Each structure stands twice: as structure tokens, then as C-alpha cells.
């Protein structure tokens, strides 16, 4: 009799433990990322404990992407979706409307972030001046990225409590790595006298990054990116560069060389390219590599511009 009682007691103790363990093991989330950085961040947070997927193919431009029927099917299979929420992944909205996925947990990375207003600078022939909107490029930065990574880790931890500590730990380790990159770049920038430099960007997507580097951007010469400038717009861009007496112009990686050459011929300012961190193969290291390249290119641009003076 004693044996039976002790067997029952042991079983009673084991069953809840087994249930807990299986619940933890069952927490195999399928997480979708709307943009490249979110894919990298989530991969670094969850490791191999969750399946991380993307919404659009590697070479696609999130600004112009048109969802396909297969994308909706893919969305239906997600447990969690990480979005920008500030207008950088507008293609997600019609997809969400078209599907009836009530259990989908959406993590809006833009929520709670301090945002930089982008006072949309239109061309002279365009109307709607002084309309205030917020800069959606919160992911092209280190400090902002860390805040978003921590938020994602916390939210994922709520969904998988058994893995919450691991998510937090991974997020902290990743944040440390990112901060080291920032610190190294800052140390190099310290040695450069940036006071004499006038820096401009083709659009204001790099505002968060330059702000945390303590670099003032004198002008944004073509605020809306991803557009093919017309002759008139290019002329306007050149006029803006001349007016702002710009030494360095940061363009995007895919900014056509012919425009770069024309701008250089007309203004003489040095032109460098920065990554928009939203194109290329999806990988765990994508964000670190893209941001390291951006930091290196900024340091190189500042160094060359000051030594050439």
C-alpha cells in the first residue's frame, strides 16, 4: 500500500514538471520580420529556439514591394510579426487586412521610441511644405537599435516565459557588441576636427546614426529616397549642396554613379555611400556587418575630408 501511495505521489510530482517542460519545448515560435535588421536582431535574440522568417525576398525593396498571394499564406503561418510601424514597411498593412490571423502577435518596434521629426523638405515646385512627420529609419542606428532589441526580447519573453531569461541574456550580449562598435567609431571621430566640415545626406534616413555620433548634418538634399531624380530635381539637389557649402555628401549604396559624377563635377564635394540596411541576403550578422561598414565609411569620409583641406 505504501508503495502505491508513494508511486502516486511521485507521479503527481512528475506530471506537472513534464507538462512545464513540454510547454517550454513547445514554444517554437515562427517569427516574421518585415525588414532586414529585424531578422538579424531576432536571430540574435532567439538563436535556434524559434524559426525566424522574412516577409519579402532578399533583393526586394520594402518601399515598393507588392504582396503576392503566397505571402498571405506565409503570414498566416506566423506566430509573431516584427514591424517598423512608422511607415517603412507599408506593404504589411494590406497583408494584415487581407488575412484574418487573430492570433498573430505584432511587435511594433517604433512604439515607445524617441523619434526624430522629419520636416519634409519638398522641392520648390512641390506643395505641402512644413508638414511634420517622423523619421522611420529608427533601425539605422546603434542606440535606437538596442532599445528596440530589448523591447523585442521582452515581448518574446512574455510569449515564451520559459525562454525569457535566455532572450534577455542574448539581447544584452548583442547590445554590448553593438555598443562596442559605436564606441570604437566615436573614438576615431574624436580625433577628427569636424567643426570645419559641412555634411549633407541625400535623404534623412541617417539622422539617428549621425545624431548618436555627434555629427551635425547641414542639409538633406533629397529627402525622399528611392526615387529616380529628374533633371530638375538633380539641379535642385546641386543648388542645395552649393547653398549649404557641403564638403561631404552621403548617398545611398544604390544611388546611380551618373548622378554622383554630375554632383561631384558641379559642386566638388566628396561623395560616399552608406547602406540603408534593408537590402541583401538575410542573415544573423547582416545588421552588424552593414552598420560596421556604415561606421567605417563615415570615419573614412571625415578623415579624408579633413586631411585634404
Amino acid at each position, binding site marked *: 500500500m505504501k508503495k502505491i501511495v508513494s508511486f502516486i505521489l511521485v507521479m503527481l510530482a512528475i506530471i506537472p514538471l513534464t507538462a512545464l517542460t513540454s510547454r517550454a519545448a513547445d514554444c517554437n515560435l515562427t517569427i516574421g520580420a518585415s525588414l532586414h535588421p529585424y531578422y538579424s536582431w531576432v536571430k540574435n535574440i532567439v538563436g535556434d529556439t524559434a524559426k525566424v522568417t522574412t516577409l519579402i525576398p532578399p533583393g526586394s525593396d520594402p518601399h515598393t514591394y507588392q504582396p503576392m498571394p503566397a505571402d498571405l499564406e506565409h503570414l498566416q503561418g506566423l506566430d509573431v510579426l516584427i514591424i517598423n510601424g512608422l511607415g517603412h514597411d507599408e506593404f504589411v498593412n494590406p497583408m494584415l487586412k487581407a488575412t484574418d490571423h487573430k492570433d498573430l502577435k505584432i511587435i511594433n518596434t*517604433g*512604439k*515607445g*521610441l*524617441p*523619434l*526624430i*521629426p522629419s520636416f519634409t523638405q519638398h522641392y520648390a515646385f512641390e506643395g505641402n511644405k512644413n508638414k*511634420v*512627420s*517622423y523619421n522611420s529609419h529608427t533601425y539605422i542606428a546603434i*542606440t*535606437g537599435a*538596442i*532599445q528596440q532589441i*530589448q*523591447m523585442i*526580447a*521582452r515581448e518574446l519573453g512574455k510569449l515564451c516565459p520559459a525562454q525569457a531569461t535566455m532572450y*534577455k541574456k542574448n*539581447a*544584452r550580449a548583442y*547590445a*554590448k557588441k553593438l*555598443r*562596442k562598435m*559605436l*564606441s570604437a567609431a*566615436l*573614438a576615431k*571621430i*574624436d580625433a577628427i576636427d569636424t567643426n570645419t566640415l559641412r555634411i549633407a545626406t541625400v535623404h534623412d534616413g541617417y539622422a539617428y546614426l549621425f*545624431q*548618436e*555620433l*555627434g555629427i551635425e548634418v547641414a542639409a538633406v538634399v533629397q529627402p525622399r529616397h528611392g526615387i529616380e531624380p529628374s533633371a530638375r530635381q538633380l539641379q535642385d539637389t546641386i543648388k542645395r549642396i552649393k547653398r549649404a557649402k557641403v564638403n561631404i555628401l552621403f548617398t545611398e549604396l544604390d544611388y546611380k554613379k551618373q548622378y554622383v559624377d554630375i554632383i561631384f563635377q558641379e559642386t566638388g564635394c566628396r561623395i560616399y555611400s552608406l547602406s540603408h540596411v534593408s537590402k541583401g541576403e538575410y542573415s544573423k550578422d547582416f545588421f552588424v556587418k552593414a552598420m560596421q561598414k556604415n561606421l567605417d565609411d563615415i570615419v573614412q569620409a571625415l578623415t579624408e575630408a579633413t586631411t585634404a583641406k
Partner: protein
Amino acid sequence: MAESRTPEKVYREVLVVPLAARREALALIIIISLIVLLMAFRFSLVSSVDSRESLKTYQLSDLYLKNQAPTLYRSLLGVVGDIMDLREENGSWPDIALLKSEALPPFASNFLPIGLRGFVWERHASKGWVDYFGVNGDVASAEKEGADPLENSFILRIIDLQSEDHPHPHLGQDNDPAMRFSSQIWMNPQVVDYPTESLVERGWKWIVSAGTPSGGNADAVISEQPGE
């Protein structure tokens, strides 16, 4: 209606009164007005709301921070998660030395632009809350000469809402019972000592972001007690 007679045949002339064009025009005007009204209504729904209108007198939108203060503000916000984790791990609010050793800016100043490295930080804590008080040791010479002060003193305040001795105002638990910690960042343009009285009464401003819950819909969640 009029009749005309000819030698051969009799024609009956019928005048057809045109449809009421005035009514048509009126209907058109009403429809256009309705469309315009609907568009205006829709626009008002989607247009950005000026959060300044819903801010308390002791709050300041982060959009109005000057110079490199936005970077410091961003940095303080970024460290909140780490501080909460460290508190949960160690059972006490982490001190400045620990935050430095964890390479957390702004306490570890080498992660900040040179203009922000002059801030000196100290911790003031109770069981249920902590203040990380930072004051700019490298106040610009222009300010020393009497120019308008910029942002020179900051407090990162984190409140454990499960404790009983937490200060006010803060984001309450009423709206989100799952909320354990509430964090806030206060700013004073002057170089000041750590305030022992109410921050509000001492002229400090609580910085709120457009995207945070303490921003746009502040009235719904902020405690009405402005004292400490």
C-alpha cells in the same frame, strides 16, 4: 402650351418644361459638400496630432530638446531595460560603478559623443525607486558667461510599482496591471544639485516622446499627484 394653325395641317406645339436645374445644382453642391466633409473628417483622423496639447505643464516633448540632449535622452532610455534586468538579478538597484563596468552609456561615457562626456552621474535610491542623477560638469563657457542655459541636468527615474513608497507623478498600474516598472527622464536646463523636494516644484521637466504612452494620451494614465 400654345397652338398654331397652318393652312394644311394643324400642329400642336408642346413646350416641355426643363427639369428643375436649380434642384440639380443644389443636389450637386450638397454631394460635393458631403464629399469634402467626409475627406476633412478622414484627414482629421489620420493627420498627426500635436502632442503638446495633451502634455502636462511639467512635461516637455523630446522634440524640443536642443544640441546633443536628444542623444543623452535616447541613451538613458536605452539603458532602462538593462537596469531592470540587473536589479532583478542582484536584488538591488545597480550603482554607477556596476553600470560603467557593464559598458552602459551614458554612465560609461566613451559610448557617447565627446560633447556629452562631461556628465557626472550619481545614484539616489530607495527600495521602490531609483534616481540616476547626472549633471554636466563641462558647462559650455558661453553659458557661464550668462547665455541661456541648455540641458545640463538629467534624472533617470525608475519606479518599482509593486513597492509602496514610489514617488509621483508616474505612469500608473491602473491601466496595465502587468506593468512592474515605470521609467521616466527629467531634465533641468540649469546645473543644479540633486533635488530632495518635488521635481515639479523645482522646475524640472519630464521629457516625453511622441511614441511613448506618456506622450499623446498622457491624461489617461498619469497619476494626478504632482508631489513627490
